[in-house]
């Protein structure tokens, strides 16, 4: 938890690194293996996955920012509770906003919006980063981790929706005429819709990433 030393420009190399690392070699889902639960649950379709990604990014960024601002005032004994209150409040705001402006999606996501509170990425980044770094760096770190998480969600949801429903964002991609029911040869893969297949997709992404990056290989 060492504070970044010296004066840095707002978009200097250090900050760019904070943004880029969680998307690549420090990805919270594929490298740190956090937030897997919701990655399985909301990735059957692209639209809820994107909304979830945006929601988590917003919550990680803002909670990192707020807690970084408060970091020198928080009594150590109730540190985790204070973090939880801030995160829970932000998640409730997100949930209310979704109910007002994206009602259908909020119904699809149902309990998973509320469960953002328990997403390990958020508490993990607050504990590991925001409590030891300045507000701006913490905000950037939150955005980076949210995007890193969201990117995996979107990749998995892309393949699951395409292979499982033949649609993308609700629009038909694989023509109706190709389906067996209409005299064609094609059939949607029902298995891809099931949560376990999301795990296999995430596994495949981890495999590809480790294959290409020597630093991530384990002995």
């Amino acid at each position: 938890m060492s504070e970044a030393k010296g004066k840095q420009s707002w978009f200097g190399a250090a900050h760019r690194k904070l943004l880029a690392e969680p998307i690549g070699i420090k990805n919270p889902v594929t490298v740190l293996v956090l937030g897997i639960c919701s990655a399985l649950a909301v990735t059957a379709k692209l639209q809820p996955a994107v909304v979830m990604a945006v929601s988590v990014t917003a919550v990680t960024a803002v909670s990192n920012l707020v807690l970084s601002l408060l970091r020198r005032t928080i009594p150590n004994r109730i540190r985790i509770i204070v973090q939880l209150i801030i995160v829970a409040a932000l998640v409730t705001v997100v949930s209310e906003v979704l109910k007002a402006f994206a009602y259908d999606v909020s119904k699809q996501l149902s309990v998973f919006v509320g469960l953002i509170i328990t997403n390990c990425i958020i508490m993990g980044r607050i504990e590991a980063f925001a409590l030891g770094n300045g507000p701006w760096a913490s905000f950037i770190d939150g955005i980076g981790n949210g995007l890193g998480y969201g990117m995996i969600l979107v990749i998995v949801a892309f393949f699951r929706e395409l292979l499982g429903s033949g649609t993308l964002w609700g629009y038909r991609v694989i023509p109706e005429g190709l389906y067996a029911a209409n005299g064609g040869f094609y059939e949607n893969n029902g298995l891809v819709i099931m949560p376990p297949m999301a795990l296999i997709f995430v596994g495949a992404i981890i495999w590809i990433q480790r294959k290409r990056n020597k630093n991530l290989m384990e002995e």
Partner: protein
Amino acid sequence: MEGKKINRNGNLYTFIYATVLVVLVATLLALCATGLKPRQQQNIEAEAKQQILNTIGIQTTADEAQAAFERYVGERYAVSRSGAVNQQADAFYLNLKSELAKSEHEQQLPVFQATMPDGQRKYIVPVRGNGLWGEIWGYVALNDDLSTIYGIVFDHESETPGLGAEITAPAFCKQFEGKTIFEGAQLTSVAVVKGGAHPDDPHAVDAISGGTITSNGVQDMLQRSLERYSAYFSSIREQQARAAMAADTLAAADSLLQPAIEPGAMSNQH
């Protein structure tokens, strides 16, 4: 604040910190909830209209729901437990949950009458009950014999996704179509049978595997909710039966009289 002047780990500091934080957060959330309430309410109303329209087989988007609802569901009124009609009440704005909390003789139960594009009349009533984790509710559309189910939709507060939550799936709701809720003059409702209903049984459908308690909840909900309307339904059914009987008698009388009258009538005309 370097932490030397104030003891950040003292009881007093911790206590005040927690209090101030909680009050601030609570205020923020209250403001947010109040500010967004009207928009959320709009969404909920549009969804209820979509669901009602769904029971009569009309699919709309949330934006079009209002216009379609006005077009098809023209008559909205309330009935009492004894079957008395109150035309003043708008069924859509009656809150079934708060009505059910009242004593039996004060309850106003919503009824929607829809006119289909082909001129047929459907009666739509809301139903409400409990699932496993929370409330479940829905709308039942009946043909104008007030017994045959034309369409049905269910919704739920927090049933388990993939199990109890499957009551909203079209596959589950479709089973109800064509089932009847009356056997003669007796209200039977529709049972939700674990292990599968006999396909020819007019009063039963299959339950959801793994969703037993929610399935039972649906069965209880239908039984109890339809019972509340049974006086009203029965009174209309009796009227219809009387009208049909009168028509029959007339027809019978006609056919009896026909040969006798006809020659006379003919000759009179000449």
